[in-house]
């Protein structure tokens, strides 16, 4: 699987956007163009404190000379953001992985962009793109606790020249009736892009529970599944057909096979009943079930939960 390239970049500018949010600009020290990115992308970097963190790019995707991020100081965090604030000065070098994107802007008749707090970062880049491209119908909803905690206020307002922005501060209008449900009702082709604190993400998830998944785009940097198991992509070769199936990090083997119209036998979908058991032919398995014994694991495999540590495994599935 392709490994993201890393770049040695220099901090070319930094400024406080609010008391807690610091903007950093990265450039190539030789002045070369940086790998291109699309609005909604993020870069991953190793903070001075050692923690690996991802940050959304706020600048316009057409800029090839710089990456701009905004980092909110999290006093309760594990030190990633505080080491950035404290130690990254103009001239500091940083190892930065080239951009990835989970929030690609797709064709849509209408966009609703929702930002909570520092979640404005990818939303700003997306709104810059939509404005530049003259998209006729998009609305930005920017929610922060107070006006002085609002980064990029001027940029957002200047991008939303058709009155297509709603700004709300929860602390300043405790009686103010703000209801997300006024903005999110029934699926109608609108694509929603959203980023913000957990509570906002959960509220939007709940309101869009009946919406098609392909119209919802969000970045959630936690990266861990509900059962706490992280995953890498790998391939499965089907013994009978010799076909190779790509298993992405966010799908199980059974989910991928079903997506191809194949219906392997299964029941619990959680690695406890053994119904989906298949023969393991080759490759290095990552057994995650609770039903096979150690000796059975030499020969068998539970595809509803298990994965692979090698690039490829062959199953009689």
């Amino acid at each position, binding site marked *: 699987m392709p490994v993201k390239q890393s770049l040695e970049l220099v901090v070319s500018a930094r400024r406080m956007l609010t008391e807690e949010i610091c903007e950093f600009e990265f450039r190539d020290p030789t002045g070369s163009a940086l790998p291109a990115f699309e609005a909604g992308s993020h870069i991953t970097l190793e903070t001075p404190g050692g923690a690996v963190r991802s940050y959304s790019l706020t600048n316009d995707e057409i800029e090839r000379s710089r990456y701009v991020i905004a980092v909110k100081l999290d006093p309760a965090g594990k030190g990633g953001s505080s080491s950035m604030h404290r130690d990254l000065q103009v001239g500091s070098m940083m190892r930065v992985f080239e951009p990835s994107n989970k929030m690609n802007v797709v064709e849509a008749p209408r966009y609703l962009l929702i930002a909570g707090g520092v979640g404005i970062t990818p939303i700003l880049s997306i709104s810059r793109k939509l404005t530049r491209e003259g998209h006729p119908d998009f609305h930005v909803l920017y929610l922060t606790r107070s006006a002085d905690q609002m980064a990029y206020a001027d940029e957002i307002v200047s991008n939303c020249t058709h009155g297509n922005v709603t700004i709300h501060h929860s602390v300043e209008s405790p009686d103010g009736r703000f209801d997300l449900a006024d903005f999110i009702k029934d699926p109608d082709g609108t694509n929603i892009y959203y980023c913000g604190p957990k509570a906002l993400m959960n509220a939007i*998830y*709940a309101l869009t529970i*009946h919406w098609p*998944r392909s119209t919802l785009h969000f970045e959630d940097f936690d990266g861990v599944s509900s*059962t706490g198991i992280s995953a890498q992509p790998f391939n499965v070769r089907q013994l009978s057909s010799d076909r190779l199936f790509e298993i992405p990090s966010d799908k199980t083997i059974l989910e991928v096979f079903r997506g191809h119209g194949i219906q392997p036998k299964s029941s*619990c979908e959680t*690695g*406890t*009943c053994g119904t989906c058991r298949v023969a393991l032919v080759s490759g290095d398995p990552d057994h995650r079930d609770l039903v096979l014994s150690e000796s059975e694991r030499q020969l068998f495999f539970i595809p509803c939960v298990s994965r692979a540590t090698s690039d490829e495994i062959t199953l009689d599935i």
Partner: protein
Amino acid sequence: MRGKIEQLYHYPVKGLSAQILNYVPLEAGRGFPFDRVLGFARHDSGFFPGIASPIPKDRFLVLLKEERLAGLTSHFDQSTAILTIKVQGRRVYEGKLSAPADVESAVSFFSTMFELHGKERPIFAEAGERRFTDAAVVSTKLMNAVSLINLASLRELEGRTGLSIDGLRFRANIYFDGWPAFRELDLIDSEFTIGGARLKLILRTRRCAATEVNPATARRDIPVPRLLMEHYGHSDLGVYAEVLSPGIISPGDTIEIAGD
């Protein structure tokens, strides 16, 4: 051994919300009234009206596969055949499932929600004399079994794991208390009474990934079957029972096994 019935529920539409019952006439060999008698089957389920063979649960739109179903609050009114679905308190569907045009709208609702378009559109299924229970694939007896949860067993699991586990994750018909935790798993083939009805425990209920879904948030957040396996060496919670002789049961009724 005497306990008490706490709550009774049925689930008219497979995969959709529990509906509370206060008064259930149990009939011999039959499941809870109007339980899992309607459902939305996948396009390739093999369902057709009058089908006599059971359909595996994954051929329906079910919580096992689609946790978002838990985020819909639905209510089916038997007397009017009206199904109402709400999201966060706002109505998103209402229709009479006896009217073809309303059925088409319901199918369209789920078709949009799960992006099952064209030939993949779900099919509204009515079970007729059968019911679309998970256990239907085992036998007719199991198809018509009632499902029970011993709340003491649930509390024991909560104690061992340090987690708060909503009993509604298990989508049972009968929730009771007052028996020792997990005692019911050792009493398969025993007869017992609820009020004036007589039943027999016939099978331990092996749990699936539907129980991972938090009914309040519609997120998979607790790996219940795996936790059961890790703590108890099996993934059973709750039991199925068949009704031997009829009676009307209600919350507050005594659930009793003689001589235990």
